[in-house]
């Protein structure tokens, strides 16, 4: 671990020499662990469903749970989280139910977003989880808006926006960080540097020394953290959120982590990277490490772990069974939610579709 990269627990789950463990009660530690494990098990299960053709697509986060969940844990419930497609873990931690998540994967009649988007593109206004979209980086400028809206109306909310290493190459990353700098927007820019953007490695993404150093271009804080160390991620994010809340401006956090799996269910990473590289990073797995820490600290045991695994398995099973039973949303949902009210041309198109469906063709 380099001097400049924040870290608290090492790969064996031991507290690093000189590191201070943040004060987090046992229940919260277990809550963190549970969310991470849930994320992992959900991913495994859903990728299987995808291979079986029961859902069309899936985005996993294996290896990145520490970064995703540690950072979300540092935020208050009133703070908006602005995710990209890989942050289901953050949503779970916040209370987004497995039922809602699974219904969205199936795009069924109970899907809260009404079958409108691909799997893993959820949203929850209630939980202050912004809507996931696929375009890389396009969510980043929204963070300034979420944050400044709060600031201008005297609410002490912070917006945390997630994105990958690849996203830093887009113009949207730049305009967002630059604007945040100028207004000291209450924003945390959270870059999951998982080393890859599909098949493109970080060296082809940028020649800058680190991703964190890009903060210099914007006069905001920049910090690198071991992204596989959930406590360190929590710590730096909490500090960044605190600064933002106090009006001291934005921070760009680079969480150094690794995408252990394929980019998405559509990808096959064996075509472009070595198994050796993956193996090296699997040894740094954030969940294994955190489990060792919890056991080491006397908070957790093998027995408890087994029980938890059983619970999670059960929960996931139940959600999938229920979701799979449901049919698609009603046909008219295709035409709803375009505008607050359906204008004439959409009413006409809906009628046209209904007529076609009714017409006795064949």
């Amino acid at each position, binding site marked *: 671990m380099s001097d400049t990269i924040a870290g608290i627990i090492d790969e064996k789950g031991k507290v690093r020499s000189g590191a201070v463990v943040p004060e987090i009660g046992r229940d919260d530690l277990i809550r963190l662990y549970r969310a991470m494990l849930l994320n992992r098990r959900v991913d495994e299960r859903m990728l299987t469903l995808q291979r079986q053709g029961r859902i069309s697509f899936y985005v996993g986060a294996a290896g990145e749970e520490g970064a995703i969940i540690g950072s979300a844990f540092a935020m208050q419930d009133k703070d908006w989280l602005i995710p990209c497609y890989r942050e289901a873990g953050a949503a779970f931690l916040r209370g987004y139910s497995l039922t809602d998540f699974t219904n969205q994967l199936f795009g069924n009649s109970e899907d809260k977003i009404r079958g409108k988007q691909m799997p893993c593109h959820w949203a929850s206004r209630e939980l202050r989880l912004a809507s996931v*979209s696929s375009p890389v980086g396009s969510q980043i400028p929204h963070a300034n*808006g979420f944050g*400044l809206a709060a600031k201008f109306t005297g609410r002490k909310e912070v917006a945390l926006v997630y994105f990958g290493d690849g996203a830093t190459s887009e113009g949207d990353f730049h305009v967002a960080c630059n604007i945040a700098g100028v207004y000291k927007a209450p924003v945390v820019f959270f870059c999951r540097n998982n080393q890859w953007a599909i098949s493109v490695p970080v060296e082809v993404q940028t020649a800058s020394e680190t991703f964190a150093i890009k903060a210099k271009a914007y006069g905001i804080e920049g910090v690198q953290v071991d992204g596989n160390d959930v406590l360190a991620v929590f710590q730096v994010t909490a500090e960044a959120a605190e600064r933002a809340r106090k009006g001291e401006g934005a921070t760009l956090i680079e969480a150094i982590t690794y995408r252990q799996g394929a980019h998405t269910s559509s990808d096959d990473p064996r075509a472009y990277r070595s198994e050796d590289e993956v193996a090296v990073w699997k040894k740094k797995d954030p969940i294994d490490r955190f489990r060792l820490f919890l056991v080491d600290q006397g908070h957790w045991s093998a027995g408890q772990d087994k029980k938890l695994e059983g619970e999670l398995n059960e929960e996931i099973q139940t959600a999938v069974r229920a979701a799979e039973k449901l049919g698609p949303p009603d046909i008219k949902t295709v035409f709803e*939610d375009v505008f607050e009210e359906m204008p004439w041309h959409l009413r006409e198109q809906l009628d046209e579709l209904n007529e076609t469906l009714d017409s006795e063709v064949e």
Partner: protein
Amino acid sequence: MPVMNIIQAVNDALRTEMRRDDTVVVFGEDVGKFGGVFRATQGLQEEFGSERVFDTPLAEAGIVGMAIGMSQNGLRPVPEIQFADFIYPAIDQLVNEASKMRYRSGGQLTCPFVIRTPYGGGIRGGHYHSQSPEAYLIHTPGIKVVVPSNPSDAKGLLISSIRDEDPVIFMEPKRLYRAARGEVAEGDYSVALGEAALVREGGDITIIAYGAMIPTVLDAAEKAAAVDGIDSDVLDLRTLMPYDIAAVLESVEKTGRAVIVHEAPRTCGFGAELAATISEKALLSLNSPVLRVTGFDTPFPYTLESEYLPNERRIRKAMRDSMSF
């Protein structure tokens, strides 16, 4: 009622809404201290302070992106894009983000903001200070498009746009900013979105236009009446998405003839949509083909801009061609 030009009417609308609703905020390049390069936001920073009226860095994607976030978290942003020609760096934010937000969240999250932007030619602005990008926006489901042609509508439509729950692109005819003057109601005053205005009545032919083309069309209509003996209905659409199909069909079914006028290039312009829809819905009423008088399918030229822009001669020629078909 006070007489104003369009700049003043826009300013008045912003002021009225900002007084009524303290979630309305205005920002963009040069809109703060300077009051905008066309001065539409003049005096607003003095009155409402620099948290509600402020300059931004030069980044349209950042401006629109910020509006998207703000509008989901309790504000009503009314950002300015300095010229419609410069909306393209923000097109991804509009097409992939703002326009789809309500849809993709199943109705949970919405983006009620208004982008004000001056559009169109006639000011010797060449390629980059003359474009009319409405067709790109109209083709993007989830965005409303509003284009006033006079001060009173500018105020009334802008107020309605700000109160609307969907993202609105409010395109201001810069050529008319100071040229169009007229009475404007004081205080709270709105014109409903989606309603066209029949600004001239005549039974021979229907001319459909909007924004900066309206005065040109009205001149042509008068001249055509006086010289060519063609008496036309002139329809000012005012809102392009969703547009007032009932008004369009009512007039065309009466006259049996239609000419559509806009500045943007012809191919895949909004005129194509109107002509296609009229030809589909009113085919049996048509006595002649729906004609389009538009900007040509070239970038907006500099020296020969008055040849490029639809003008009285071209409009009258189309009217005569339509009548004599």
